[in-house]
């Protein structure tokens, strides 16, 4: 009892402590998985439906569906209070397409991506994307939406991408270490794999998130400003992944603000200024006329409030 009044003591043997905690909690941590296997099928199904619907190891061996998942939207709108983030969007991100979403600040690009990802419920209209129900959709938020202070190492962050193979309660599969190494090598982060994410530079952190996307192996990938404040070489490296994903038959939708980048690398473009201005082949969408219309659309009455919905 006397020991417990000395707060510094546990630190001296911190690693022993961790080992002890690990050892004593291992049975607890496994207990749920074990009790799952003891329970009947229906109970298991109920548990999975409510708490662990992401556990789906069978999804790994299914390249057969790739190239079939696009995103279709019908009359899609999202309103925050009085202001529309975006409205009246109808069309399709074709299967295996690489689309840039571009537009002035406050045009509703990020809101659109969140709606496509199913994070925000649309005010009107619907999103049809079979990848969502199968959990084969990946969404990369803008960097400032993630808590960089969270105590997690780079390798742990990347390993999360393999969620469908361990879910909420099961132990990680054997191949996980190998695939994490592979993904880290692909983005060039092997050297910092044991660092805390708080210690990474902006570019390194984005590379780590791309490594997680690699493990996630999704059929539809939504990226919000993935190249914001990155240097040129990082942008080039990461851009290559986008092109590879498209060539593998995945549907990639990316919010961007760099017109040159879009013109050079993205086959199709959605020009958004709260309502869609143009959607189609990049060279046609980004005509001078369309760009001027997009600028003008947002300088109208509610322009000063639009920044909120960005």
């Amino acid at each position: 009892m006397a020991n417990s009044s000395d707060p510094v003591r546990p630190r001296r043997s911190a690693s022993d402590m961790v080992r002890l905690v690990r050892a004593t909690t291992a049975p607890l941590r496994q207990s749920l998985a074990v009790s799952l296997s003891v329970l009947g099928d229906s109970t298991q199904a109920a548990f999975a439906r409510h708490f662990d619907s992401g556990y789906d190891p069978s999804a790994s061996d299914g390249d057969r569906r790739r190239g079939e998942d696009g995103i279709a939207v019908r009359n899609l709108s999202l309103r925050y209070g009085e202001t529309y983030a975006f409205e009246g969007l109808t069309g399709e991100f074709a299967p295996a397409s690489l689309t840039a979403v571009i537009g002035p600040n406050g045009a509703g690009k990020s809101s659109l991506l969140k709606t496509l990802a199913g994070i925000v419920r649309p005010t009107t209209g619907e999103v049809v994307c079979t990848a969502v129900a199968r959990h084969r959709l990946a969404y990369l938020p803008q960097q400032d939406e993630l808590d960089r202070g969270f105590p997690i190492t780079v390798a742990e962050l990347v390993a999360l991408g393999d969620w469908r193979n361990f879910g909420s309660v099961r132990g990680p599969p054997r191949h996980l270490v190998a695939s994490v190494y592979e993904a880290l090598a692909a983005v060039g982060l092997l050297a910092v794999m044991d660092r805390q994410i708080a210690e990474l530079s902006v570019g390194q952190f984005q590379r780590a998130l791309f490594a997680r996307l690699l493990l996630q192996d999704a059929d539809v990938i939504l990226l919000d400003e993935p190249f914001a404040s990155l240097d040129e070489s990082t942008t080039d490296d990461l851009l290559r992944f986008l092109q590879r994903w498209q060539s593998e038959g995945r549907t990639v939708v990316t919010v961007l603000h760099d017109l040159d980048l879009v013109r050079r690398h993205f086959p199709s473009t959605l020009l958004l200024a709260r309502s869609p201005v143009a959607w189609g082949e990049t060279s046609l969408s980004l005509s001078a006329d369309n760009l001027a219309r997009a600028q003008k659309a947002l300088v109208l009455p509610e322009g000063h409030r639009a920044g909120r919905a960005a």
Partner: protein
Amino acid sequence: MIGQFIGFMIGPFESFGFMRLALVACFALALANGPIGTLVLLRRESLSGNVLSHAVMPGAALGFLYAGYSLAALTLGGLLTGLAVAGLAALTARSRPQRQDSSLIAFYLVSLSFGVLIVAARGSQADLMHVLFGTVLAVDVTALVLIASISSLTMLTVAALYRPLAVESFDPAFLRAVGGGGGVFRAIFITLVALNLVASFQAFGTLLAMGPMLLPAAAARCWTHRVWPTIALATVIGMAAALAGLLISYYANLPSGPAIVIGAGVIYGMSLLAAGGMRLKPKSLEGQ
């Protein structure tokens, strides 16, 4: 000398049953508060936790009004209003994403005022003090069983659902996209926080209940960057603060609840000074 010291440490608990009960209750609370406090800190939800701790009060006060010092009534009432306010806060947060902190503070103040009005309507000044600051030394066996049950339930739940709880606090959009469930884990977590605040309510009252939950976790965060060690260390610090606080309150004849919270506060301060210097980058303070 050493014998004397041990006598000093153990004597009060040897002689008095209520001191033993208080110590065991505080240890049980520390066991649950370690993981819960750490998760509250990681999720940067100290403010919501504070709101919850005050939201427990009107229900507990209503229970007190109709059933006197009935533990069941206090607990049930507190839990119900706590969860109701958590639900309301979630709804307001959804409709006005920008104004979350002010609406949370509104809930906090209104709940507290309601609670005070309800207690004042029937009880005495002493009752009010009891509800606001708790009475660790009045914990009886029934209350101890309740606290221990809540503590065990909390530890089992966190152990079983640790992974999604941690991931949901770091990157909820990711968890939702991979199908790990989104709102479910937030709801489970808030329920756990409310449960533990109800357990703390008896001992620390509505104003101090967050103390034993947050301060040890905050102190532990100064020493380590990993989650499991933070939880373990927070538990140990919570127990140490409880022991020290109870001893101080016994020898100096001070109220025990505040003494325990101050004990945790002193450990937090020492941790900040000793180890926190290098961790105090602006990044780690963002959003707190």
